[in-house]
């Protein structure tokens, strides 16, 4: 069911939602959270689609905040309600015009599902400090995506520096399959690890986080090497007996090699946005492991290049890569 409300108020939206729910026989009972998506008109379609897909796992009310022209002098709120067509939960698209666009939280707060967690997601450019953003402050969990920012690595460093419990970033979520494979590799007996190395395309926040995570967890220097991609192409853990290495040159299939054993292959796919979002919605408590990794990355990024904790790799440094990509 699709309901369009032009020039409306939150009270009318609430009423329309409740009526829709009654007419459908109450599909909203099982909603476990409210997902607030902060986006613009151009990115709205993909984000709402991903949210709808993950709503199959996490039934939720999706409030999509779309700021339209903020220049006008008169405020206006348009709402589009979608219920029961595309799975469990409800989706409301909120388009805000004029000065109202600066006060989106005043529209969102009355529409939150009572007494359930709130997750705010910025699929595009993250705000300066998510935890201080009005729409971020009302959420338990704030999901950003440094990869979508204009300057990815600086954005990640900035997000890490302003970390508040509940912050998380898709560049960390994208790592889970890699981290799973690495952790599983170290479940098996192995010699002491003396160094780590992460190869990836330049300007990859995920690769920086992976290197930082390895450095934190293994207490060894972790180097960042640059490759042609796509994404992360390999991780090497140096031990006294030889290297434990996972390579993925094509973005699809990973090869695990370890000393004295045959190479093993496994699919290691890059995941679509809906899966990343579903993973984020699975845990709503602060992710301390992300905090540690991001904190390590930020401290290195912001530290003077002369005294890094880990040696800076010889190939093009991260910042150079970041600048190249930023112009795209």
């Amino acid at each position, binding site marked *: 069911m699709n309901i369009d409300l032009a020039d409306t108020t939150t009270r009318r939206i609430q009423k329309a939602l409740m009526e829709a729910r009654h007419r459908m026989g109450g599909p909203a009972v099982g909603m476990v959270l409210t997902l607030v998506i902060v986006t613009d008109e151009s990115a709205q379609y993909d984000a709402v689609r991903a949210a709808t897909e993950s709503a199959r796992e996490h039934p939720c009310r999706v409030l999509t905040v779309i700021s339209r022209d903020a220049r006008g002098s008169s405020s206006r709120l348009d709402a589009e309600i979608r219920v029961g067509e595309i799975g469990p939960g409800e989706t409301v698209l909120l388009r805000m015009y004029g000065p109202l666009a600066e006060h989106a939280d005043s529209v969102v707060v009355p529409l939150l599902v009572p007494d359930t967690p709130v997750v705010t997601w910025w699929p595009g450019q993250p705000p300066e400090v998510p935890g201080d953003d009005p729409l971020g402050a009302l959420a338990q969990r704030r999901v950003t995506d440094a990869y979508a920012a204009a300057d990815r690595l600086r954005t990640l460093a900035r997000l890490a520096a302003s970390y508040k419990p509940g912050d998380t970033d898709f560049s960390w979520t994208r790592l889970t399959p890699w981290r799973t494979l690495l952790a599983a590799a170290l*479940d098996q007996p192995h010699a002491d690890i003396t160094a780590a190395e992460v190869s990836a395309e330049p300007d990859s926040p995920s690769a920086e986080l992976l290197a930082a995570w390895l450095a934190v*967890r293994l207490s060894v220097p972790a180097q960042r090497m640059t490759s042609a991609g796509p994404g992360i192409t390999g991780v090497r853990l140096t031990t006294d007996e030889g290297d434990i290495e996972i390579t993925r040159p094509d973005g699809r299939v990973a090869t695990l090699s370890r000393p004295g054993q045959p190479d093993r292959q496994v699919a290691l796919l890059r995941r679509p946005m809906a899966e990343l979002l579903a993973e984020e919605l699975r845990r709503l408590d602060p992710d301390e492991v992300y905090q540690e990794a991001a904190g390590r990355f930020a401290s290195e990024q912001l530290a003077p290049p002369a005294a890094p904790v880990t040696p800076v790799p010889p190939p093009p440094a991260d910042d150079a890569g970041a600048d190249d990509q930023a112009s795209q």
Partner: protein
Amino acid sequence: MTLPARIATSGPGGAQNPLRDPRDKRLPRVAGPCVLVLFGVTGDLSRKKLLPAIYDLANRGLLPPGFSLIGFARRDWAHQDFRQVAYEAVKEHARTPFREDVWTHLAEGMHFVPGEFGDAGAFEALAMAVKELDQTRGTGGNYAFYLSIPPKFFPQVVEQLQRAGLTERADGNWRRVVIEKPFGHDLKSALELNATLHQVFPEESIFRIDHYLGKETVQNILAMRFANTMYEPIWNRSYVDHVQITMAEDIGIGGRAGYYDGIGAARDVIQNHLLQLLALTAMEEPPSFSAEAVRAEKAKILSSVRVPGDLGLTTARGQYAAGWQGGGNVRGYLEEEGIPANSKTETYAAVKLEVDNRRWAGVPFYLRTGKRLSRRVTEVALMFQRAPHLPFAQTDTEELGQNALVVRVQPDEGVTVRFGSKVPGTSMEVRDVNMDFAYGKSFTESSPEAYERLLLDVLIGDPPLFPRQEEVELSWAILDPIEEYWAEHGKPDQYRSGGYGPDSADQLMARDSRAWRRL
């Protein structure tokens, strides 16, 4: 930066893995390098459940790189034929979307060994095959044997495995054997089966699959009871009037005549699924969720179960007769192909059990299961006592039943609470309403199949969801006297297909002034 003090232990031998951290909940448990040897790979279970579950695990990244699967069956197949069969099974039955890359690498590790269970040469070929996989795919000498075959072949297969040297293991390697119900057909045969397995496999490497225990809702019974405060205070004889545990099926025996006749509903379902559900519903809080602690509590409950004295009055059984069900005309049990016309095997069984402990004394547990009933449902229903006093006029509460808390196991997993509510209008009239937690409806698409969970647990070596020998024996000890009574007294009543079971089952409840929940 220093490492946190608490580091998860994982992997064989509990070695510390610095990359694991209990706070890092994103990282799933992943099986270590291993080979799964599947006996009976041509069977229904393999095609519909096991092979798809293996693919789903691979797709979720939970199988190790190099994971290998060997099919063993009496077919003249090459590896390629096996892969084709598996491919079709996965395409049709897998839960997660099909991805070519995942399939390609899984299929590379699929091998087939043809042979009969009596053929020592075939098992030698199998031993060669797993050793080769250790070399080529790095499976590390860890083997799980899944016996998806009739139990009468177990002794032979186990003996052959031993003779081919497949059960010998080096230090740090493991061997596991997985078996499906039935775990015997009475206490004596269960003991024999265990003796056979124990000749070769120690108890901790035997994994008995009761797929009900892998279901999310069944695990949720423990979460609901022990993670919340509002249920446990009323979860006892002071508030609960009785408990009904039901597993109803709308299908007949299908092509399983050879297996089913002589076994019957009680052995097929009550002995394992329903008594396990009873144990989870009635058990005390375990000190932890370790396998040992949970199993110990379950064993305590099963040993407190008492079968009432007069089995003629507290049990009921039936056979489905011909009739119309679900829009089709169906045959009766005795007319099914392969069933003797004088068969006394029951397709419906209901029993009343008591649990003799402080929490449950005097609260009967009614267990029922049947085939060709009106619909398919498995549920645990706690029926609460009526309010001691109703300050309403008699006519106002005529339609008020007992409060109920129903854990719906399948289909439509979830929890229903039934309570009285005022009917809108001027007069004070109270009627039953349902409040629904639609666990199933909202989560099915992503919640793993029971077999996924259980297979992964086998490969990881995590035993809490598998009944151990003691539980199997205790369950048979409960059922044996009932089966003996039935063998000596009369025969099953006929009941109409598509209905609610035999009248004798309703009379069983009526004698206690109670009634079954309508299916």
